């Protein structure tokens, strides 16, 4: 079957009445949770995972795709109306979007963000539908040693590109790798880092770690380290609509944002921070209204928002084709797949084509539902921002604890959640980024599996790890990622000393 036929098949699966219903519920829930300040897309999806447990896989996938896009959309609403640079992908949106809102242009900012996200999401999902299968076809020939090299590259880029200290990013990665070791080793059955605890033999629940790092860690951090200043919501006047002039100034940034965001999602560049920033810089350089930047230029919202969504869709390419998450959100998506017993990777397109194509079709449907449902109801979402701060934090804390408990109905998981919450506090306090921990936790066991496979085949000969040409190229890339920033800093120092 060709890709187009498979995709049409996928649409047939996604567009039944029941599945559409689940899509609508997903859109509403995703937006609802994403709009709440302090909740980014990764946490929103992780918090909503338990809800998708109870429905059929196809319905769960479409609901999930809707949550995915809904959470991202909700995040941009918050940053425009509330100026909340909490989640890395929305920092740039807040920059211009909030200024627009202050000047009474909140409606236009929300509209350009929503329509831009829709266009970028649709184009990017279209490319995904064709790129992922071909990448998977190629990836079937990738050896265990290549995979191991690829994961080392992912570790390094995620560890070094996030936060402002390479060592601290690597520290976060190390803690994640250590947590990933806990439990019985799948290949030999040896028990690691359990200290005699029977619950720990099954390993640490990934969703629990993610939810506690974000939610409990944040609650502890705000309580201990921030002054209670509250926030001010910019009131929204009029409807979420754009004028002809706005549209004229937005469409090129949308397309450029898509072109920047998608490829950077495919390579492990550590999430949406880099592409949204690049898109912003591009729009600023190309704009005819340079004087407006910093005071509410619509291009500065349109471009980064499109880049953010295209980036999220791009991250699905390595996730589906290689089973490799490149951002915290993609890592949560991987966990979601695993709860439905679907293992992303090159064989997914062979073993579970129905599921993949339903998912890809669901992404189109979810994205469209989002545009249709959200723009008219944006005022309803805005009401959510009025929840008093104390109740917001209690609510997030209670949902996180409940999520940790219901995964296995085990009190042991709750103690783990509290411990991880403290780690989340300590990391924030000492400027250690959180995403590398999540990537290490999820990719660590996979990296170990591939390394042992490669060495098993070669009877322990280490040279097997860098014997293929792909692995050689990857190790060169790895070298460049580590050495590049060092050289860069050194040059800067030299220039400063002159």
């Amino acid at each position, binding site marked *: 079957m060709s890709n187009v036929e498979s995709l049409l098949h996928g649409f047939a699966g996604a567009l039944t009445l029941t599945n559409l219903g689940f899509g609508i519920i997903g859109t509403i829930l995703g937006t609802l949770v994403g709009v709440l300040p302090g909740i980014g897309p990764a946490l929103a999806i992780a918090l909503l995972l338990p809800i998708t447990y109870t429905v059929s896989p196809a319905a769960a996938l479409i609901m999930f795709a809707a949550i995915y896009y809904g959470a991202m959309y909700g995040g941009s609403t918050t940053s425009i109306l509330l100026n909340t640079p909490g989640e890395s992908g929305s920092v740039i949106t807040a920059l211009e979007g909030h200024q627009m809102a202050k000047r009474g242009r909140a409606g236009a900012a929300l509209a350009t963000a929503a329509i831009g996200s829709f266009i970028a999401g649709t184009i990017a999902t279209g490319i995904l539908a064709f790129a992922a299968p071909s990448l998977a076809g190629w990836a079937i020939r990738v050896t265990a040693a290549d995979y191991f090299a690829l994961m080392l590259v992912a570790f390094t880029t995620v560890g070094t590109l996030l936060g402002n*200290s390479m060592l601290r990013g*690597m520290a976060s990665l190390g803690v994640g790798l250590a947590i990933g070791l806990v439990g019985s080793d799948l290949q030999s059955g040896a028990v690691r880092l359990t200290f005699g605890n029977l619950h720990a033999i099954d390993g640490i629940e990934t969703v629990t770690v993610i939810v506690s790092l974000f939610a409990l860690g944040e*609650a502890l951090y705000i309580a201990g*380290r921030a002054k209670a*200043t509250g926030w001010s919501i910019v009131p929204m006047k009029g409807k979420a609509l754009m004028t002809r002039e706005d549209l004229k100034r937005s469409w090129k940034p949308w397309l450029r944002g898509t072109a920047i965001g998608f490829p950077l999602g495919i390579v492990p560049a550590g999430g949406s921070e880099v592409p949204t920033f690049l898109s912003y810089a591009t729009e600023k350089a190309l704009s005819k209204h340079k004087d407006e930047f910093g005071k509410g230029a619509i291009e500065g919202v349109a471009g980064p928002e499109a880049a953010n969504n295209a980036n999220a869709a791009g991250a699905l390419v390595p996730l589906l084709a290689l089973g490799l998450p490149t951002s915290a959100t993609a890592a949560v998506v991987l966990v979601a797949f695993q709860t439905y017993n679907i293992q992303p990777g090159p064989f997914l397109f062979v073993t579970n084509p129905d599921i993949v194509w339903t998912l890809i079709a669901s992404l189109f449907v979810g994205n469209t539902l989002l545009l249709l449902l959200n723009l008219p109801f944006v005022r309803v979402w805005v009401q959510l921002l009025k929840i008093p*701060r104390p109740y917001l934090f209690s609510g997030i804390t209670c949902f996180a604890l409940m999520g940790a408990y219901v995964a296995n109905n085990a009190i042991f998981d709750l103690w783990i959640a509290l411990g991880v919450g403290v780690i989340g506090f300590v990391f924030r306090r000492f400027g250690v980024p959180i995403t590398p921990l999540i990537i290490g936790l999820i990719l660590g066991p996979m990296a170990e599996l591939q390394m042992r496979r490669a060495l098993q085949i070669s009877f322990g000969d280490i040279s097997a790890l860098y014997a293929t040409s792909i692995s050689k190229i990857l190790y060169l890339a790895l070298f460049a990622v580590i050495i590049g920033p060092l050289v860069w800093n050194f040059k800067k120092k030299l220039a400063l000393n002159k």
Partner: protein
Amino acid sequence: MINKKIGGELAFAGSLLILGLVVVFDSFNMLVPPGSGIIGPQIFPYLVGGFIIAIALGLFIQIFRGNLGVPEGTEFGDLVDKTDYKSFSMVAGAMLTYPVLIERAGFVIATSLVFWGVSYAFGATKILKNLAVSVIFSLVVYIAFSKGLNVNLPAGILGFLA
């Protein structure tokens, strides 16, 4: 003065070092099942432990050079330099009651207590109003999840109501 400032940083790097040592030590003492092959379950933990130790040592050097971490900014107000231990321990204390009470007292009581404690720490100091909100929140969540979504939540001592 400087010593006090880097105390926390040193404690952080120190805990990382201990974590690395624990991983290596655990791997060293691991019971390896027979037939695990040439590449057994110990190699990867050794690598991870060694990696963590190396990073911890690097952090020590960085800290002594005066290169300290930049606390993460938040969207909820300005950062303070000294930890507010009162609010922190109230939030932490409220969270700690949850694993103790969830199965003994049940979901509604445990959740109400956490909700009440956390919101009090975040400045909702009207005790009675707060309590009402907490109980209503817990009941609504309990009914929505246990009746609506068939998620198994412990009823606890309020089980007779269900």
